[in-house]
C-alpha cells in the first residue's frame, strides 16, 4: 500500500476575498466558509478566527483539531465519517502543514474539552500552541446535552472535519512543496534484507469506553467500542480512517490531527528497513469491563504472535481504568515472548505521590512516560479569549472546578486560571509529540 502526501507549509493565514494558497499564505473567505458550515442546520451560531503562535489568545472549550487535507481523487478525507465509506491509506492527498482547524464551543464545554494558549507560559502545554490555527467558534441546537458533563459534540466535530476538507480545496491544483511517501509491502512479500531485521508491530488503544454510540473514536465511521482488535496498515491511520472522539479527560486525547500525523507511526516508518521490519498496526481499543479488556489483550497478543512480531509498541489514549487495558496488553505481549515498549501518561495526583497507573506489573519494564494529568497549572490572564473561559470551571471540564477550598475557582475574575493538566487540549501527546517526561523528585 502506497500513500503519498503532498505538503504545503502554511506560514500565515488571513481572511480575504477568495479561498486561496500562495507561497505559504493561506487566504480564507470568511463568509463563504461560514455559509458552508451553516449548511448543517444544527449550527446556530458560528464565527471564524485565526490563532497563530505568539498571539495573545486563549481558546476554551476546545473540542477537536483537524489537519486540512484533500484527496486528489475527489473523495472525502474521512471515509465513513464525512463521506461515503471508501478505502483510506493509498493514493495521493494534499495537506496544509503547520496548520490545523480547531473547533471551540461558543458557550458550552464538557468533561472531554480543553484549553489552548497561543503565547506565554501556557503555550508549551499543547502542540496546537505552536501551529497556525483556523478557529471555528460555534454553538448548536443540541440543547439535550448543553448541560450534560459528557457531550458528543457531534455537530461541532463534524463541522470541523468538513471545514478542514473545505479549506484544503485551495491546494488541489497546486504543486506541493514536498512529498512524503508511506509505503509498506505486504507482510509476507518483503525483501529478504528487511526480513532479517527484528519485526515490530504498533499497537494502538484509541479511546472507546463509552457504551453509548456517538462519543468514541471512529474507525471508518465505526464506533470503536463495538470492535475487537484487528490488523491495519499504518497508512490507514495517517490517511483519515481514524476520527477522534469526545470522551476522556482531554490531555490524554488523540485528536484527528494526531492520528493524521501520528509521530509514533512516522518514527517506526523511519526505522523500517534500517533497524526494524515494521509489520503494521494492531488496532485495539479501550474497554470498560475486565473481560473485555482481557479479551482485547488476548486478540492483540495472538495477532502479533501470528504475524511473527518480535517486538511491539503499545500506546493508550487515556488514563485511569484504561491503564488496566494498557498493562494487560503489554503483559500479554511479553508473555507471548514479544519484547514490548509502552507509551503512556501518568496520574500521580496533585501531590505527585499517587500510584502512577492504576494497575502495574513488573513485566512492563520499558515505558515511555509523557506527562502527569494531575499537574497543577496556573496561568495569567490572556488578552483575547475565544469561546467562553467560564466553561473551564462551570461545565465539568476534567481539569477545572467551580470552586475549591484551598485553590479557589479555576477561572478567576481577572481572567487568570488554575487548572489540572487534565484539561490541556491533547497535552500529553502519547501519540508521540511529547517533549515531556516524568521524573521523581
Amino acid at each position, binding site marked *: 500500500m502506497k500513500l503519498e502526501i503532498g505538503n504545503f507549509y502554511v506560514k500565515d493565514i488571513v481572511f480575504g476575498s477568495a479561498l486561496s494558497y500562495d507561497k505559504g499564505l493561506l487566504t480564507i473567505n470568511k463568509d463563504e466558509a461560514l455559509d458552508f458550515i451553516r449548511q448543517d442546520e444544527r449550527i446556530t451560531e458560528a464565527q471564524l478566527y485565526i490563532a497563530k503562535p505568539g498571539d495573545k489568545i486563549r481558546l476554551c472549550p476546545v473540542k477537536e483539531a483537524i489537519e486540512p487535507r484533500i484527496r486528489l481523487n475527489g473523495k472525502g478525507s474521512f471515509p465513513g465519517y464525512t463521506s461515503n465509506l471508501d478505502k483510506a491509506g493509498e493514493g495521493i492527498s494534499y495537506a496544509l502543514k503547520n496548520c490545523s482547524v480547531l473547533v471551540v464551543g461558543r458557550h458550552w464545554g464538557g*468533561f472531554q474539552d480543553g484549553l489552548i494558549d497561543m503565547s506565554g507560559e501556557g503555550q*508549551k502545554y499543547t502542540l496546537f500552541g505552536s501551529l497556525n490555527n483556523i478557529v471555528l467558534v460555534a454553538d448548536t441546537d443540541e440543547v439535550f446535552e448543553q448541560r450534560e*458533563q*459528557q457531550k458528543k459534540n457531534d455537530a461541532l466535530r463534524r463541522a470541523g472535519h468538513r471545514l478542514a476538507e473545505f479549506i484544503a480545496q485551495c491546494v488541489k491544483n497546486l504543486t506541493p512543496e514536498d512529498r512524503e511517501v508511506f509505503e509498506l509491502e505486504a507482510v509476507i512479500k518483503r525483501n529478504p534484507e528487511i526480513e532479517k531485521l527484528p519485526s*515490530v508491530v504498533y499497537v494502538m488503544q484509541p479511546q472507546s469506553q*463509552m457504551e*453509548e454510540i456517538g462519543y468514541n473514536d471512529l474507525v471508518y465511521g465505526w464506533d470503536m467500542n463495538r470492535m475487537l482488535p484487528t490488523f491495519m496498515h499504518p497508512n490507514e491511520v495517517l490517511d483519515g480512517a481514524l476520527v477522534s472522539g469526545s470522551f476522556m*479527560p482531554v490531555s490524554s486525547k488523540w485528536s484527528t490531527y494526531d492520528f493524521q500525523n501520528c*509521530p*509514533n507511526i*512516522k*518514527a517506526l516508518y*523511519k*526505522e523500517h528497513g534500517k533497524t*526494524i521490519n515494521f509489520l503494521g498496526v494492531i488496532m485495539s481499543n479501550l474497554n470498560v469491563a475486565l473481560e473485555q479488556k482481557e479479551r482485547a489483550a488476548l486478540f492483540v497478543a495472538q495477532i502479533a504472535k501470528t504475524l511473527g512480531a518480535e*517486538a511491539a*509498541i503499545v500506546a493508550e489514549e487515556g488514563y*485511569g*481504568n484504561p491503564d488496566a487495558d494498557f498493562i494487560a496488553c503489554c503483559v500479554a505481549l511479553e508473555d507471548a515472548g514479544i*519484547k514490548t*515498549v509502552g*507509551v*503512556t501518561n*501518568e496520574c*500521580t*495526583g*496533585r*501531590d505527585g*505521590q*499517587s*500510584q*502512577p*497507573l492504576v494497575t*502495574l*506489573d513488573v513485566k512492563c*519494564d*520499558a*515505558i*515511555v*512516560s*509523557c*506527562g*502527569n494529568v*494531575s*499537574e497543577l497549572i496556573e496561568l495569567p490572564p490572556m488578552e483575547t479569549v475565544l469561546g467562553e473561559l467560564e466553561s473551564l470551571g462551570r461545565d465539568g471540564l*476534567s481539569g477545572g*472546578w467551580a470552586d*475549591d*477550598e484551598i485553590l479557589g475557582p479555576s477561572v478567576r475574575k481577572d481572567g487568570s486560571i488554575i487548572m489540572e493538566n*487534565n484539561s490541556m487540549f491533547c497535552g500529553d*501527546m502519547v501519540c508521540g*509529540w*511529547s*517533549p*515531556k*517526561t*516524568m*521524573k*521523581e*523528585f
Partner: protein
Amino acid sequence: MKKAVVYINQFFGQIGGEDKADFAPVFKKEKIGPALEFAKNLNAEIIGTVICGDNYMGSNADKAVDEIIELLEGKEFDIFLAGPAFQAGRYGVACGTICKAIKAKYNIPVITSMNVENPGVEMFKKDMYILKGGNIASKMRADVAAMIKLANKILNNEEIGSAQDEGYFGRGIRRQVWREDLKPASERMIEMLLKKIRGEAFETELPIPEPDRVPIAPPIKDLSKARIAILDTGGIVPVDNPDKIQSASATRWGRYNIENIDSLKSGVYKTIHAGFDPAAADADPNVVVPIDVLKTLNKEGVYGSLHPYFYTTVGTGTTQAEAMRMANEMIPYLKEDNVDGVIMVST
C-alpha cells in the same frame, strides 16, 4: 546573609568514639568538624553546631529532639544541615529524626546525606532531601560539597531538579518535566525499543514501584451478629449532592442515612462520578450501592445489622493521600458504631 545550623554526632563533633555515644546534645557557637567544611562554600552563615551522641538519639529520640529544639530556642536560621552520615546506621537514623523534627517545627529546608545502604534512607527519604553519599568518612569532602550545592540552590530560591539530576534519593514525588533536549516520545520509544530488542541496557521512564501491603484484618467470627457498613467510590449521592462531592479528583465525601429506606430510588439518588457512563447508576443506584439486597439479606438473618449510613466519594483522579485522609475521617464513625466488617464497592 542567611543562616544555617549543622548537626553532627559525637564522633564528628570530636567528643569521642563509641564510648561517648550516650553524649547528650549540646549547641556550640563554633564550627566543628564537617561544619568547617560546609562553611567554605555555603551561601549562609553557620551560626553553630549541634552535637549529639548517636545512642542518646537512638534510645531517647523524643527526649533528644526536645532538648535540641530547646537548645535552638530563640536562634534564627534558614536551613538545617545534618551529617553526612555515610553508612553509619545509627548516625543516619539520627540525622533523619532530627531533620524531620526541625522541618515540622520550623518549616525550613533540611538536608542530609547518607549512603544507599544506610537504613535511614528507607526510613526518611520521603520526608526530606537525602543526598546519595559515600560509604565511608573519607568521602566527606565530596558529600559535603554535594550538600552545599543543593543547599545553595535552595537558599538562592533556584528550582530544584529531579532526584536523578540533583543526586538525592527520590521522595516518591513524580512530576512532569520538559526534557532539556525536547526529544519527542516517538524518538525515545524507538531508542528504548532498539535497546530492548538488542538486549542492551535501557532505562524505563516509569520504574514499577514495589507493592505496598497491609496486614490482613482478622475475619468476622459470627456473621449473624455482625454489624456491616457499606462504602462506595462510585459517587452515589442524594440528587442535590449536599456535600458537593467533586466528580473527579475528589477531596470531599458524604454519608447518607439509610435506616428507613429499603432501596436507593432513582430520582432520589444518582451518581456524580464523571469517569463512566452514568445512565445505569442513575436509573437504579442499587447497582452501585446494593442497599436493596443488603436489607433483604439482613431480614434473612445472613448478617446481624446494617450501619445506618452509607459512605460515598469519587475514585477517579483522587490522590492516595486524599483517599487516605477521607478514609480516616470515616473510620471513627464506623468504630463508634462498632462496625465489624465493611463492603467497599468500587467502579
